[in-house]
């Protein structure tokens, strides 16, 4: 088909490393490779590189440097927050509140905790993916030790009312963790202003390297380690530090948060043009997620009568990289738990497409998707018995 062209519309799954970021990392592979725990002068460069990166992460989210702990990625940070708070505070209570639309790193960590004596409340969300603050308040018991609610959803892009949640948590004296893996670099974050006690982030979502992330832990929070061992990260996260990775995280977060408004403006303009074009050209399409409170680069739509995987395969043949649901959950045949939680019937959940724009997205990419996508949807609809029934009967099958 259209051949060689590559249009990457899956920045929410992962991003490339920016050249400036890679440049910053390079000296730490072969030259300044010293173990930061060592006493000799040679390792000072690694040590100070880590501390500089820590400052940058802290600055980006309004924290203090000594509240930032580097991890091996977003999932590790999420697991640490949940299990670490649970195990360290089980004398106070065994109840945790989260939502039905969290990433699997949260949901499956919760399942593990359920098997080990903890009770979890999974909050509902409305049709836009928003939690209800009322429901949250009602869910709190005197055994609640943690509220974990994601900053922004990875599939539908909905941004939760984090500051309001933080106020509730603070008032009730409960730790508040937010999975901000999708939010960092896309939304302004101030952990102090928002009363966040713990926050997870991952470098590869904002043009940093894979395999490195961080957990912000507010001073004074009582938390057990997830990875026990050596005294690294002020005795809280063992393991020889991934120096180039940490340096890359620092550089990437600095770049991503330094000019967030004008950066977002550009992305939102393109995103809206793409979305409007899709809605105009492709009938029987539904936008998933909140119409306004959503991540700048995120589009999530359901095309009725067709199925997501076959849509992705055809898009791929035209060089368009996209996803249906979360990248992590492909390989599973169940429709996304997020789309079910916002009330989509299975059949419509199955026909969902996520296009996520990023820094490399150009106006001509938008033109190209708008040219290719409607044809592909039509082609699949022409094969679909559901569409046939709809055309013949003028109605859809009720599921």
């Amino acid at each position, binding site marked *: 088909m259209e051949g060689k062209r590559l249009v990457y519309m899956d920045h929410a799954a992962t991003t490339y490393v920016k050249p400036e970021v890679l440049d910053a990392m390079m000296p730490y592979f072969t030259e300044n490779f010293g173990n930061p725990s060592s006493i000799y002068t040679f390792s000072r460069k690694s040590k100070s590189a880590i501390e500089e990166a820590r400052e940058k992460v802290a600055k980006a989210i309004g924290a203090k440097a000594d509240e930032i702990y580097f991890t091996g990625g977003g999932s590790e940070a999420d697991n640490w927050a949940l299990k670490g708070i649970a195990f360290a505070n089980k004398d106070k209570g065994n109840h945790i509140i989260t939502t039905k639309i969290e990433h699997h790193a949260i949901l499956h960590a919760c399942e593990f905790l359920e098997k080990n004596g903890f009770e979890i409340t999974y909050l509902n969300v409305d049709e836009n993916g928003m939690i209800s603050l009322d429901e949250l308040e009602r869910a709190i018991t005197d055994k609640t030790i943690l509220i974990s609610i994601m900053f922004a959803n990875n599939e539908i892009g909905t941004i939760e009312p984090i500051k309001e949640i933080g106020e509730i948590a603070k008032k009730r004296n409960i730790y508040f963790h937010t999975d901000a893996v999708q939010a960092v670099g896309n939304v302004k974050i101030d952990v102090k202003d928002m009363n966040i006690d713990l926050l997870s982030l991952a470098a590869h979502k904002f043009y940093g390297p894979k395999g490195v992330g961080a957990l912000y832990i507010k001073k004074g929070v009582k938390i057990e380690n997830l990875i026990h061992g050596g005294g690294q990260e002020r005795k809280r996260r063992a393991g020889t530090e991934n120096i180039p990775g940490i340096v890359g995280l620092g550089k990437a977060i600095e770049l991503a948060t330094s000019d967030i408004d004008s950066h977002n403006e550009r992305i939102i303009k393109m995103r809206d043009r793409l979305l409007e074009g899709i809605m105009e050209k492709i009938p029987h399409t539904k936008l998933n997620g909140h119409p306004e409170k959503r991540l700048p680069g995120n589009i999530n739509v359901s095309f009725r009568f067709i*199925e997501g995987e076959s849509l992705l395969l055809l898009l791929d043949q035209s060089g368009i990289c996209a996803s249906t649901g979360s990248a992590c959950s492909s390989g599973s045949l169940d429709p996304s738990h997020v789309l079910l939680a916002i009330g989509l019937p299975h059949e419509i959940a199955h026909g969902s497409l996520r296009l996520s724009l990023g820094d490399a997205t150009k106006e001509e990419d938008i033109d190209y998707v708008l040219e290719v996508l409607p044809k592909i949807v039509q082609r699949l609809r022409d094969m679909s018995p559901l569409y046939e029934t709809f055309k013949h009967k003028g109605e859809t099958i009720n599921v």
Partner: protein
Amino acid sequence: MYSDKVMDHFTNPRNVGEIENADGVGEVGNPTCGDIMKIYLKVDNNIIKDVKFKTFGCGAAIASSSMATELIKGKTIEEAWNLTNKAVAEALDGLPPVKMHCSVLAEEAIHKAINDYRTKNGLEPFADKEYVHDHHHE
């Protein structure tokens, strides 16, 4: 993930469409599972003269429909009845294990269309087996 054969049949599916006044029609699956398959048969003298399909489903489901229709075209009703999902998957150079049920749908849809044809023509429907769908739902 998919073999070249699967991708070929997915990209250029054979026999897509409907047959007006078909002699037999079979529709199986349901949209909850993410797949529906509908098969139309034109039968002449116990021979499948023409066959068309429509499928709502993944790449494997579309490719299975395409391959299955190719495999029964020109065959007798009995031959078509004996086409197994394994044969469809093999003809596609294999399917990923999680996608085997997509080929089951093809076998099932053909069976349903054949029995629809037989019933319409006053013949005893063949005894069909129980289909176990290994779709797991949360």
